[in-house]
């Protein structure tokens, strides 16, 4: 890559994603691709697929929303 100017593909995140986050990203995209665009549909899809929430428990709307609130806002300006 040229180094004489700013060409930085990753500007929005502060750190590399974890394996869990990559798996979750895959699962969310598959859920959306299947047309699950509401929160209950999305959570049901994640539970059908079998990727557990970070605590090893099935996903709930609250646990999914809380995780997204943390990951989605990570690194945002206050």
């Amino acid at each position, binding site marked *: 890559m040229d180094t004489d100017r700013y*060409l930085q593909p990753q500007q*929005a*995140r502060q750190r590399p994603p974890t394996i869990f986050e990559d798996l979750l*990203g895959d699962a*969310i995209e598959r859920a*959306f691709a299947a047309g699950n665009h*509401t929160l209950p549909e999305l959570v049901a899809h994640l539970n059908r697929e079998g990727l557990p929430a970070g605590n090893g428990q099935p996903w709930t709307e609250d646990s999914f929303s809380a995780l997204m*609130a943390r990951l989605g806002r990570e*690194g*945002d300006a206050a």
Partner: protein
Amino acid sequence: MTTIAIANAAADPVEKLLTFGPKNLWYAVCPSGFVGEKPVSLRRFGRKLALWRDASGQVHALEDHCPHRGGPLSQGVALGDRIACPYHGVEVRCDGTVTKVPGSPGCKLEGSRPALAFHVKEAHGAIFAFNADKNIDEPPAFTLPEELSSPEFSSFLCYSEWKCDWRYAMDNVMDPMHGTFLHKQSHSMAEGDSTAAFRIRDTETGFVFEKTGQRGVNFDWTEWGVTGTAWMRLEIPYPKTGGPGGNFAIVGCVTPINERMSAIFFWRCRKVDGWMRDTWRFLYRNRLEARHWAVLEQDRVMLEAMEPDANQREHLYQHDIGLVRLRRFLKTMATEQAQAAAG
């Protein structure tokens, strides 16, 4: 490398204004994170700028040229709202006033205002500077489209530097049809007809260039506006995997660095709220940003491979009336400014 001389930019004031950008506009100059308390030097709109933050975080910008003998102020020491030139210690305040000449106290340079100062605002993750040729006390306000200014939208800035005339980057955005071809293999622009008829619709701040008979399918329209700053915006649909929230929008600003380099600002925006907003922001960081970047690189590679005089040897057709209108808009602005400067 062979370079081909285009119209003599130095001799023609209109061409010079077009090459380095019209004056008296706010230009995005860099992402917020580029500037800290240690001064940095950035070339923008054909000038070198020294930028730094004071202890409160406020950004200041002076031309990176000491009024004494042209030393690089950016290599000096920042002293709050002033900067001391490393060459002879001359202190210049952020409004362009020389406050101290240590080598010759009381000389007439002290108290005068010979340095060129730039007004600065920080918004949407970027630093903007008002591009005037002389010091002014109060610059006009600027606004950006609702995709950035409204809290209903969420956005990320993507910044890039391209080795091309800034007008090539603007023409590229004012050319929606290239999406169907150049970006056909992208994650979001595989749909829709490969032929289209376009029309231009005037707005209060500029114009919209749009396809007739197709909207929300591919890259189908671009808007140009001047609201104290010049911007472009467009929308591109996400595939179903992008989840709820509809199209994503791009607000773009291009700032000339020099004749052959441009600073590119693309804010990727989406109207989303609650868990959808958080999920989009997670997915953007986790994977969408990389896909958007790949699309933007297709544009960069194409524009950088075009000859510097490519826009002097063209055969335009109906898809190009948007960029013809944009060029006319800029030329009118530059001509008026050149005439005003000539008195």
